[in-house]
């Protein structure tokens, strides 16, 4: 069985190569691949190729990667390294991209550590207490909490349950009850589809360029998370942190404080693409984004690779029910989405909204309540 062992070793190693290249390869797939190879003619390269591809790959966008890996591994073809982005290498490129120069306050940023970006201006806003909102603003914010809680996007559940105001006869129960009355349907039990809240995932950019808005938006996140189950909130800057557990407290101010602690990269540069990738890889895999309405709050200033933003947005949009992008800069009538990250993301965005004041947040709530699936067939 020497040859059999050799094949097993080959396939196991190849599976590992693919996994390192970013494919999701578990022991189940390796076992399937071995069984598949056992069923086809090993002397026919095409059959071996397809047998491995059909067991190892489960998405069209992985085919390219697989082809290159297959070429390198089995055909000894010269290939480029797999297209896995190298975050470290890209970081150093920083503000070289022309779009980045448009970024406000970039002069300081080029000079030194991104953490020092626009320090004086940002500090002022950072110090502004929640209580410094005027009474009117505060009331509106509170109202907003209720409004958003009510206006969660809903979907109709597959299951029906007994409902006196239902739209369908509960025939199973009707038959059982009719037994007692000799076949006369005296009662008319009804049932209806339950409307259950759609999953809502919020990804909020809290980097330096968003500082002006981050405070207000945290309140917004708190309001939405407080609206019930199925809401997840994340903050991102140079990386991603999950905020949901911190936002479940009743007191927004305490939540704000805890958020600030949780998001260690508060106030530093933004890596939208890398953060989205982290989200897709960790939470997207657990089906968090599937069928969800995703709200991304960011100005779209990507310091690394706009292409990565596009790729990750594509993945996100495919899994999601709808994607909403809230960009506070859009509040300015002269704003144009020139930032590379924003431009790359826009094709995958269903609704593009401003989020610079309370009115625009209300608009967001209205949009969320009535959002339709973009890619419905």
């Amino acid at each position, binding site marked *: 069985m020497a040859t059999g062992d050799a094949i097993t070793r080959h396939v196991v190693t190849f599976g590992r190569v693919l996994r390192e290249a970013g494919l999701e390869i578990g022991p189940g797939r390796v076992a399937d691949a071995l069984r*598949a190879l056992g069923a086809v003619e090993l002397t026919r390269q095409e059959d071996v190729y397809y047998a491995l591809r059909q067991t190892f790959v489960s998405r069209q966008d992985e085919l390219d990667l697989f082809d290159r890996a297959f070429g390198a591994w089995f055909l000894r073809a010269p290939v480029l390294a797999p297209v896995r982005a190298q975050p470290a290498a890209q970081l150093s490129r920083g503000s070289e991209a022309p779009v980045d120069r448009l970024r406000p306050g970039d002069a300081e940023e080029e000079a030194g550590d991104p953490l020092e970006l626009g320090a004086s201006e940002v500090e002022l806003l950072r110090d502004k207490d929640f209580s410094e909102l005027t009474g009117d603003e505060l009331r509106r914010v509170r109202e907003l909490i209720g409004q958003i809680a009510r206006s969660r996007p809903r979907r109709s559940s597959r299951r029906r349950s007994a409902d006196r105001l239902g739209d369908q006869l509960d025939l199973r129960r009707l038959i059982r009850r009719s037994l007692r009355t000799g076949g006369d349907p005296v009662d008319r039990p009804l049932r209806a589809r339950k409307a259950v809240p759609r999953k809502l995932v919020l990804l909020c950019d809290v980097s330096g360029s968003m500082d002006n808005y981050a405070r207000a938006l945290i309140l917004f996140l708190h309001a939405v998370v407080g609206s019930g189950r199925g809401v997840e909130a994340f903050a991102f800057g140079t990386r991603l942190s999950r905020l949901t557990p911190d936002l479940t407290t009743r007191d927004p101010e305490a939540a704000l404080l805890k958020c600030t602690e949780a998001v260690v990269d508060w106030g530093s540069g933004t890596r939208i693409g890398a953060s989205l990738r982290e989200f897709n890889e960790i939470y997207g895999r657990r089906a968090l984004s599937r069928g969800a309405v995703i709200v991304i709050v960011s100005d779209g200033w990507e310091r690394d690779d706009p292409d990565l933003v596009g790729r990750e947005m594509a993945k996100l949009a495919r899994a999601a029910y709808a994607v909403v992008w809230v960009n506070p800069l859009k509040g300015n009538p002269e704003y144009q989405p020139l930032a590379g990250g924003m431009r790359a993301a826009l094709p995958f965005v269903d609704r593009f909204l401003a989020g610079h004041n309370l009115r625009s947040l209300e608009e967001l709530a209205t949009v969320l309540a009535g959002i339709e699936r973009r890619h419905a067939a």
Partner: protein
Amino acid sequence: MQFASIDELEQALRRADYLPDRGLSTALFLALTLEKPLLLEGEAGVGKTEAAKSLALATSSRLIRLQCYEGLDVAHAVYEWNYPRQLLHIRAAQEGTVSEDELFGPEFLIRRPLLEAIESDEPVVLLIDEVDRADEEFEAFLLEVLSDFQITVPELGTIRARIRPAVILTSNRTRELHDALKRRALFHWIGHPSIDREIEIVRLRVPGIPERLAAEAAAFVRELRGLELAKSPGVAETIDWAMALNALGRREIDAEVVQQTLGSVLKYREDIELVRDETLSRLIEAAAAASAR
């Protein structure tokens, strides 16, 4: 329903008037041999549904099709009780003589595709079409059925498959399917066929078509796919069009006949309007050149 080799399956599919490429034959062969569901994805019109139908023909199996849509539920996918019959039965039996067990017995059960496929005594190809349209909850339920090949009806108990159906799932990728479902299935991406294969398909499906016409039609559609269209034509459209051209008694294509018949290839008005004048002449020239090779 087993084949000794991919070649053997390929021949059986050919006899069913289906010309798979090697990749698809391998996928179908592995699905049968490893008894795993096969997920087919690809552009609209590349023959995903056809593949399942032809597999049923080639294996002399019954094709059971479940068309998915948003809101698809157990009553439409698995089973439902035949309530009118139950009511009539109670009436007919008069008072007190009907037990609940009798009323919820197999004869009052309406079998929907999934239950039918599980219960079948003959070999079945189960086609779960456009699974991406169904809700997530249904997908989770489907995963259960595809893992154990059994279905539980509360009143009747668990029904197990005696013969495992061959399962083909198709998806148009309007959303990502569940990882667990993907892990359970083999995956094959069907691309547009090569020009030679498409000519071969046209000649197989449109008997008596002049060789040159088949080649020009296939080459023209291929050129169309290079344009930015709202809906790119698939193989099904090539076949429809070739049939139309053949019925008109044409031996080759020209601007006039293309304009008359383009509606069987392009389904959107914008797309038809795009293919006019210079674009049309350019495409016809390119098609003539390509088919003359």
